[in-house]
C-alpha cells in the first residue's frame, strides 16, 4: 500500500503543454493555499441529507443517512468511500439532478433544489455531446445562459487554452483521447463560470501518466480560478494529493465517518512519502467499509450501487 507508483518525469507530456512544469526539481513556485475563512459563510452546506429508496426486491435501502457537510469558498474537498456508498449520488444531489428524501442543500446560505449553473457537475462518464464539436461542447452552457456570440467565442477560446486544447476546437469528441476528453469536460464546466465544481471520479478511467498530468492541471486551474471543488474518488491517495480536506463516507448507510484536514504543502505528488503516509492513515479507517462493500458484491454477485433515480 505504501510503495510509491513509478514516477514519470516530464517526457510524457504532450507538446501542447508548452513549458508548464510539474514543479518537482524545476523550482516552480508552490501554489498558494486558498484562504480558508473558517468562520465565514460556507459556499456549500449540506444539512441532514438522507436518501432512501425502494430496491427492485421491494426492500427499502437507506443509501445516505443524515449527512452534514460544510465547504468553504475556494476549498478543495475530497470525498472518499467504498464503491456503492452513494458518494456519486451525493454529488448529484448537490447538483440538483435528484432530490434527497430529506435534508437540504445550501449554496451561499440559499437553499437549492434544482440544477443551476452556479454548480457544475463533471460526470464520471463525462456526458460530452458527441453531436457537437469540442468548441461547441464548451460553448453549450454559455449558450443556454444566453450569452452573446462574441463573449461565448472569447470564453470558449480562453477555457480551451486553459486546458491546452485550443487547436482541437473543431474536432469531435470521439476523435480525442480519454485524457483530452476529460479536459474538454473540465473546460465545458469551467466555461459557465460556476462557483462550485463537482467532480465525480473524473480520472478513474485514465492511465497513470495522464492522471498525473491532469492532477497538476486541475490543481493549477483551481489555484488560478479560485473555484470551490468537491471531488469524489475511491482513490484515497488521489484524495490526499488534491484535497484540502478529505471526508470519509461509510457504506450502507452512507454517513460521514471522519474528516481529515490535509495540510501538506503544495504542490504535492502521488509519490510523496507524506502523501502516502496520510493516505495510509485514511485507508486504515476506510478498510472496514471497503470489506463490507466487497462482501455485498460477492454475496449478491453485483457491484453495489446507489440508484438515485429509483422510486423513493
Amino acid at each position: 500500500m505504501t510503495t510509491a507508483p513509478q514516477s514519470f518525469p516530464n517526457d510524457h507530456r504532450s507538446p501542447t503543454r508548452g513549458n508548464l512544469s510539474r514543479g518537482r526539481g524545476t523550482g516552480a513556485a508552490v501554489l498558494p493555499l486558498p484562504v480558508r475563512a473558517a468562520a465565514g459563510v460556507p459556499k456549500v452546506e449540506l444539512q441532514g441529507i438522507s436518501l432512501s429508496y425502494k430496491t427492485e426486491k421491494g426492500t427499502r435501502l437507506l443509501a445516505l443517512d443524515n449527512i452534514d457537510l460544510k465547504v468553504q469558498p475556494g476549498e478543495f474537498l475530497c470525498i472518499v468511500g467504498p464503491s456503492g456508498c452513494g458518494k456519486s449520488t451525493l454529488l448529484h444531489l448537490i447538483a440538483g439532478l435528484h432530490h434527497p428524501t430529506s435534508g437540504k442543500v445550501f449554496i451561499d446560505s440559499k437553499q437549492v433544489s434544482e440544477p443551476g449553473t452556479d454548480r457544475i457537475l463533471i460526470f464520471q462518464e463525462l456526458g460530452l455531446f458527441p453531436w457537437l464539436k469540442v468548441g461547441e461542447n464548451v460553448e453549450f452552457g454559455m449558450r443556454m445562459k444566453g450569452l452573446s456570440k462574441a463573449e461565448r467565442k472569447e470564453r470558449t477560446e480562453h477555457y480551451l487554452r486553459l486546458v491546452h486544447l485550443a487547436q482541437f476546437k473543431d474536432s469531435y469528441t470521439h476523435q480525442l483521447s480519454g485524457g483530452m476528453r476529460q479536459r474538454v469536460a473540465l473546460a465545458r464546466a469551467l466555461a459557465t463560470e460556476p462557483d462550485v465544481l463537482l467532480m465525480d471520479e473524473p480520472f478513474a478511467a485514465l492511465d497513470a501518466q495522464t492522471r498525473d498530468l491532469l492532477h497538476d492541471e486541475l490543481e493549477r486551474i483551481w489555484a488560478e480560478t479560485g473555484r470551490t471543488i468537491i471531488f469524489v474518488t475511491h482513490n484515497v491517495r488521489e484524495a490526499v494529493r488534491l484535497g484540502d480536506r478529505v471526508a470519509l463516507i461509510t457504506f450502507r448507510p452512507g454517513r460521514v465517518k471522519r474528516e481529515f484536514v490535509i495540510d501538506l504543502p503544495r504542490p504535492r505528488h502521488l509519490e510523496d512519502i507524506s502523501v502516502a503516509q496520510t493516505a495510509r492513515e485514511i485507508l486504515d479507517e476506510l478498510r472496514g467499509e471497503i470489506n463490507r462493500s466487497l462482501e455485498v458484491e460477492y454475496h449478491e454477485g453485483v457491484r453495489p450501487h446507489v440508484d438515485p433515480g429509483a422510486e423513493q
Partner: protein
Amino acid sequence: MKHGVRLIVFYSGLLGLWAILAKLKLWPPYLFPTPWGVGESLYAGFADHSFWIAIGTSMQRVLIGYAISVILGMCLGLGVASNKFLEETLGGLLVSLQSLPSICWWPLALLWFGLSQNAILFVVIMGSLLSVTMAMEDGRKQMPKIYGMAGRNLGARGFPLFWHVLLPASLPYIVSGLKQGWAFAWRSLITAEMLYMSLGLGQILMMGRDLSDMNQVIAVMVLIVAIGYVVDGLVFKGLERHLQRKWGLLPST
C-alpha cells in the same frame, strides 16, 4: 466491386428467366407481360410526361404527409416517453392501433375531407404517424440518460433541453423508426391513390388495370419500388452513415 457483380448477375438472371417464360408463350400476353413490353411502356410513359407528372404528384403528397407525421409523431412520442400516465394509456393504444392497416381510415377520411387531396394526406399521416411516434418513444428511452442530465446540469431546460440535447441525442436511435415511417407513408399513399382518381402513381396503375394494359401495371410497380429503394438507399442510408460517423460509431475517414 464484387457486390456489384453479384447484383448484376442476379438481376440479369431474373430478367432472363422472365424473358424465357414470356417467349415460351405459356400464357397470353395480357396475362403475362413481357420484359420488352414493360420497357416500352416505361419509355412511352416518360416520353409523354405522364409518369413524370404522376411521380411529382405522388412525391409531393408523400412529403407533405410524412413531414406532418414526423412533427406530430415527435411530439406524441416524447410525450409518451416522458409521462408515465401517457405511457400506460396512450402508449398501449398506439401499439394496438399499429395493427390497423392505414387504408381502414379511408372511409372516414372521405366523410371528413371529401374526395380530395386532404383525404389522401390523412391516410398517409395515419399510416406513418404510429411508427414515427413509437420510434421517438423508443429513441427517447434508449438514449443514454447521461445526456439529459448533462444538459440540465449545464442550465438547459424546457424546449432548449429538448431541441439541443434530447433530440440530437436520440437521433441515432430514431432513424430506423423514421425509415419505417417513410415506408408506411409511401405504401399508404399508393393504396389511397388507387382508390381515387388523383393523378398520382396509384391512379396510373389502376388505369393500366382498367385498360387491361398489364405492361403499364408492371411499369408503375417497377417505378414504385424504384422510388422506395432510392429514398431508402440514398436518403436514409446516407443519414444513418452521417450520424454514425459524427457520433464516432464508424471509423471516420
